[in-house]
């Protein structure tokens, strides 16, 4: 078994598209949630989202290739290039054949699908864009990253709704740990802030009209976001030999299904997955100092996640800290787990806990230390990153300090 470390990070986020703007947004609790302005809002009941307004695909993608890609794939490329540059790894030569690329997404090319339906049903057009199919396919993000980086190794997409990014990183971790590949690029990308996408979420009655306030008693639902994040995972020996800067080590991964309700989370399922991650990492509960929570800001997730953490950690639950990034980032769905994996890697590197922003009123049902509103310097030896998806698909990563 190889040890696996994180040596590169790349993001597209509602608070910026560089590692440092992303991190400062999280640490300062500078929310990326804002009034929707990129699409017509006349038919929307919920008029806020965390749109990645700084993302400018035209500035870095060859215009001849731009029309081949949905926004989610453009974001995947940008974050993958950023992560590779950040790691300093050279993907030419042998690594071009052996590097794995795994990109999670919930919806795939949602913007493409929305635009084509708008043409067909809204404008009665008789044809849609000729590349509609290859733009909207769920694997388009993974395929475009491979083409962009000229990597021919194992490449595929992972779709598990809000856990997609975490599953992608977890699978890449297993491939590097098991020696299948020496290096992997893994993460997630999502861009479904379309009129159709927002109406679909509105219909579920889980969106907040106001703000995302994880673990706060007055929380009123989740706020949709978008973005992408990719991480370079590498055999530790290899990274050390080339003198790479190491953000964190990945120690373990747990995953499973609730096999229960379609949308309501299961405390048991959450707890079981955290225990799997701990066991896989060879950690005891008191090794964990911090949990990057799923923390969506819905009534049921945050209360259930709190109960699950209490079940797993017992008395130690009152000694660890947890926080949610979603007040700042919104819920990036298929990208969320990847963005939060980046946040967790940075938390370990810098030994600073990003706060739960937007927090206002303590809730007895969410009675853990949620690091309300203000970042904190603190020793973090091992951290978990939780993702719990619609469809009952759970994924938890364990990260260790390098």
């Amino acid at each position: 078994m190889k040890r696996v470390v994180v040596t590169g990070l790349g993001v597209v986020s509602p608070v910026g598209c560089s590692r440092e703007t992303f991190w400062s947004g999280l640490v300062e609790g500078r929310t990326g949630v804002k009034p929707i302005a990129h699409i017509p809002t006349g038919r929307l009941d919920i008029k806020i989202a965390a749109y990645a307004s700084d993302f400018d695909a035209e500035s870095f993608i060859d215009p001849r290739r731009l029309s081949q890609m949905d926004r989610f794939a453009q974001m995947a490329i940008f974050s993958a290039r950023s992560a590779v540059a950040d790691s300093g790894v050279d993907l030419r030569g042998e690594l071009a054949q052996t590097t794995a690329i795994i990109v999670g997404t919930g919806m795939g090319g949602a913007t493409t699908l929305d635009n084509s339906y708008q043409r067909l049903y809204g404008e009665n057009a008789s044809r849609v864009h000729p590349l509609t199919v290859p733009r909207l396919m769920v694997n388009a993000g993974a395929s475009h990253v491979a083409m962009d980086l000229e990597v021919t190794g194992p490449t595929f997409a992972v779709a598990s709704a809000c856990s997609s990014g975490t599953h992608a990183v977890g699978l890449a971790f297993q491939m590097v740990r098991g020696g299948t590949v020496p290096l992997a690029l893994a993460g997630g990308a999502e861009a479904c802030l379309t009129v159709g996408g927002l109406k679909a979420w509105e219909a579920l009655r889980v969106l907040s009209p106001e703000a995302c306030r994880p673990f706060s008693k007055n929380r009123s639902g989740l706020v949709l976001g978008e973005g992408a994040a990719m991480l370079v995972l590498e055999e530790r020996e290899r990274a050390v030999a080339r003198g790479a800067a190491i953000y964190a080590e990945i120690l373990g991964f747990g995953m499973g299904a609730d096999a229960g309700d379609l949308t309501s989370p299961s405390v048991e399922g959450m707890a079981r997955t955290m225990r799997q991650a701990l066991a896989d990492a060879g950690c005891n509960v008191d090794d964990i100092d911090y949990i990057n929570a799923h923390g969506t800001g819905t009534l049921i997730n945050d209360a259930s996640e709190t109960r699950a953490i209490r079940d797993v950690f017992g008395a130690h639950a009152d000694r660890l800290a947890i926080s949610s990034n979603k007040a700042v980032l919104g819920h990036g769905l298929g990208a969320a787990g990847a963005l939060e994996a980046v946040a967790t890697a940075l938390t370990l590197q810098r030994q600073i806990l990003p706060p739960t922003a937007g927090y206002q009123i303590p809730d007895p049902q969410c009675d853990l230390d949620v690091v309300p509103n203000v970042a904190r310097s603190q020793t973090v030896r091992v951290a978990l990153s939780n993702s719990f998806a619609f469809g009952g698909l759970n994924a938890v990563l364990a990260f260790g300090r390098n």
Partner: protein
Amino acid sequence: MDVGKEIKAAIAKHLNVPAESLTDDTDLADAGLASLDFVEIIFDLEEKFGIELPYNANTASTADFKTVGDVIRLVSSLVETRAA
């Protein structure tokens, strides 16, 4: 159109029980209505009556939808407002 009867029929369909078994006092959660059933029922009623029901699964408005009678009262008032 008998709003009460229509609502009971919609709820009974989701619970897979006879509509006659529901009274105004029937507690929706006790009757086995899960959150997704509820969201679907609201959609059915909005479509049927051409109204919009203010329901967010995360806020206290859930308390306004505790019993069958609560739903009937709210829908009836919205239907009347629309007719006025």
